[in-house]
């Protein structure tokens, strides 16, 4: 479990990349996890179906905030269509550590915000999750 606070994650937490606000984003989504109060807003600039700029803002625990920072680096240049299909696996690959049933929700928060933005939606549709212990996000 100490891996949770591996160099890289702490580095992203302490020195977040792409954190801040964006004027006139093409897509924006704000999501929260009411169980721990974590918040993430994702803002995207999009050209020809690709992400050309990312900003994010938020507050919360190391995992949710580091995940947002890492995600913001990873998606630049990626086609929206691809991001729409990212899931738990992609997010865990980025973080590079295993997570228990509670912390996985922290990690998924920025991805959920990103996917909502990428789909251009404002409320989450009915979505299946593998882990029956995790609450679905219906902001």
């Amino acid at each position, binding site marked *: *479990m100490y891996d949770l606070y591996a160099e890289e994650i702490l580095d992203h937490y302490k020195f977040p990349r792409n954190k801040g606000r964006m004027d006139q984003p093409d897509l924006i989504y704000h999501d929260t996890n*009411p*169980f721990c109060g974590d918040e993430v807003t994702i803002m995207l600039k999009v050209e020809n179906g690709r992400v050309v700029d990312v900003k994010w803002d938020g507050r919360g625990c190391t995992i949710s905030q580091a995940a947002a920072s890492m995600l913001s680096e990873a998606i630049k240049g990626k086609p929206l269509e691809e991001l729409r299909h990212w899931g738990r696996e992609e997010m865990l690959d980025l973080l590079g550590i295993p997570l*228990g*049933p*509670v912390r996985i929700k922290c990690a998924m928060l920025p991805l959920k915000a990103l996917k909502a933005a990428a789909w251009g939606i404002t409320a989450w549709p009915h979505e299946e999750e593998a882990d*029956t*212990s995790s*609450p*679905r996000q219906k902001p």
Partner: protein
Amino acid sequence: MTTTTRTLDPVRIRDDFPILHRQVHGKRLIYLDNTASTQKPRQVINALVQVYEEVYANVHRGIHYLSEAATERYEGARRKVAQFINARSPREVIFVRNTTEGINLVAYAWGMANLRPGDEVLITEMEHHSNIVPWQIICERTGATLRWVPVTPDGYLDLDALERLLTERTRLFAFTAMSNVVGTINPVQELVARAHAVGALVLVDGAQAVPHLPVDVQAWDCDFLAFSGHKMCGPSGIGILYGKRQLLEEMPPFMGGGEMIREVKMTGSRWNEVPHKFEAGTPAIAEAIALGAAVDYLSQLGMEQVAAHERQLVRYAYERLQDIGGLKILGPGPDDRGGVLAFVMESAHPHDIAAILDAEGIAIRAGHHCAQPLHDRYGLVASARASFYIYNTEDEVDALALALHRVNQVFG
């Protein structure tokens, strides 16, 4: 007994059940009260001990090792149960205390929200009180009408009457898949289809079916199924309500409290996902995990094999009991029933039968078996009931028959 490889070997199975090796009143225990509750194999007892000795903590939301480990096992048990009854998703499996709570959950949560005066709830004369009283209570509260499918003299549902009783006013048809008295196995799939044809939902009381027969909720297409862990080698204190996901999503919650919420504000609350929406407070953690062990145990035996073993035993018992003077078996012939035999004797009151048998180490039930309307229908107040499970043998049936002869001697 036939000896194809997959036939149950009750003698070997008995080794797994510590209690079956004890004596009662100086006689070896012959446990024939399985419809009320079954005994537990050491695999299930060990699962309980292991949880408490190694991975116990409260589940959900804990960020420490034990809580995560307990949560994984608790949710793992849910997956096992889902697979056992072939649910589409573990989210369709709600942990409750017992069959009774499962049915009450539907009565309160679905019934209070959906039943209106003029609506009808249909049950049958062969139901257990647990599938009667909740509907009496909810019908009284909502103004809906309770209707009853009659039972034929030989213990079958009267399907002609059903034809008349199932109408577009029927909002829910609740019936048992197998009677806990006369042993009748009802044609669930057909009954579900007929109810759905008039737009009614179906709740199946699986308290006797799930422990004794292969059950596939997708094949049955029932909307709800309730059953109890303690009747299928699991611990007391745990039961299951299966419900179709869409229905569970639409239903308001039943009990309120921790875990079933997503957000609690002073101005109001929002609910958690299914199945958690219906599991308020700290659940029966160790019990759910041990029920998972019971499901593993039964799956390994094979439910087809379990059913075949009981069919064979009940046929044998049916024959042996025919020989006993003045003894009358209630319900269908030996081919259409599960491993339960209720009977009355001319010479003795059911209480006296049970007491004489107890002195011989044989445990059976005597009474109305929580099915008073069925007994009323037969003009009886009580009956004696012997019921079988995976660990029972033909030897034990012989002992039962011998003891019943003895009853006739004592009271002759």
